[in-house]
């Protein structure tokens, strides 16, 4: 009886040491989880999630303060990717934060613009060019469609237009699941 206890105890101690040693010796320096989450977010910096940009939201998710379904621009794809990364169940987008829609870019009506620079200050990615008293314009390729420039504009000269998909960006559609069996299994 006693020998058994000693033997088990010794074994436990030995394995404990071994595990402790290998934890230190073979530690994997993985990307901090915040970076991994941030990499999955769409980087619109729109703040619809309730945080001041994508990285703060990533930090909040990592800290357990925010849910994974608060990003309308990312939509279902982002929720799915986050769920995969964090090993949790995906859930539908929380509609309090907005709806997932088509990709948009801001366009400034250059006739109406008075050059107040308010939108320039609001743009999270510095995608609006211009100076005081001078007409502003949006660099379409760099605009994330966050809509943050809309509220500050005193003359409402900014409109959101859908991103034009040209022929080189066209995507083949997912084959129509003609057979209901296939449709269901694809979910």
């Amino acid at each position, binding site marked *: 009886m006693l020998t058994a206890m000693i033997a088990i105890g010794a074994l436990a101690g030995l394995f404990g040491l071994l595990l402790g040693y290998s934890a230190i010796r073979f530690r994997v320096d993985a990307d901090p989880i915040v970076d991994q989450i941030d990499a999955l977010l769409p980087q619109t910096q729109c703040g619809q999630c309730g945080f001041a940009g994508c990285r703060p939201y990533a930090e909040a998710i990592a800290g357990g303060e925010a849910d994974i379904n608060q990003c309308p621009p990312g939509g279902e794809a982002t929720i799915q990717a986050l769920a995969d990364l964090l090993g949790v169940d995906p859930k539908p987008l929380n509609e309090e934060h907005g709806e997932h829609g088509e990709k948009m870019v801001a366009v400034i009506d250059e006739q109406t613009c008075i050059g107040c620079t308010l939108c320039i200050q609001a743009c999270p990615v510095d995608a609006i060019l211009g100076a005081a008293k001078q007409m502003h314009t949006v660099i379409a390729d760099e605009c994330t469609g966050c809509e943050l420039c809309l509220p500050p504009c005193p003359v409402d000269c900014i409109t959101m237009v859908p991103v034009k998909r040209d022929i080189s960006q066209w995507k083949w559609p997912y084959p129509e699941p003609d*057979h209901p*069996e296939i449709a269901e*299994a694809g979910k």
Partner: protein
Amino acid sequence: MEFPTHSSPYLPLRNDLSRLMATVMLALVPGALAMFWFFGWGVIFNLVIATTTALLAEAAVLRWRNKPVRAALLDGSAALTGLLLGLALPPLAPWWIPVIGSLFAIVIAKQLYGGLGYNPFNPAMIGFVVLIISFPLQMTLWSPPGGIMGLEATGFLDTARLVFTETLPAGASLDSITMATPLDESKTLSSLNLTWQEILSDPRFGNYGGYGWEWINLAFLLGGLWLWKRDAIQWHIPAGMIGSLFLLSLLFYIADTDSFASPLFHLFSGATMIGAFFIATDPVSAATTPRGRLYYGAGIGVLVYVIRTWGGYPDGVAFGVLLMNMAAPTIDYYTRPRVFGQRGEQDD
């Protein structure tokens, strides 16, 4: 002028699922006829009951799952499962044996996994294994092959009465109308320390594979070769299974001709041929890469030999197939073919 659009290719498609299943069913006919010849009406009862149950079960589950019933029944996969199970059952088994086997095969082994294409195990063999584990007594009710030792197969009415009401013909005992299969018998006899030569001299062992059984296996071989010729199956799995079974039995037979059965006996007894050409080749649960299919078939052959020679069951085809089903995804993973233009990278 305006025209409809869809994705390529546009030529008429070459193959069809229902046609494929129909070809396999047609190829079963010689084997089924041979079984009928030797074992009588019980074979037909089994086929009819198992197939009907399979179709009804498939329809019921599909309706319950809110799936189109007609299209799925017409693909023929459920009927084929029923037929294969029916051919595997002893001819004098009571009616509820094929019913339970078919129900289990279709409902549990096939539909609960998602239906056609999603089942990891061969449904017919799951049904068979459930039966042989749960009802070992009923699963030994093989009648003596017709013509053996002057015995005739049980007649239509007697068989019907036996199957549906489980009452024996007047003056008969269960022992008088059933007989162990050669595979079963060879186990019993060799445990009595008889040599293989002595065993083989018994008339029940026929010329090389057991009386009746050698003809049944030949008939299935014929159907199988026709399937291969028609391009409905590929040679890899049957060749792997028959090849490994032959080599292994030859090896042991040469080492000790007294204690081990001959290769010919293994090839033409039990479910070897129907297993090699019709059961192991079920594509859904088998390995898919060319090299993988060869390993998969060879694995079944080895398991069949091991189970027959040292295991507790007379035949090992069902267990062999199911065990290799389990290994199929792994086999596929490690036998991925070398992609054109990739030198040696994936040649595991």
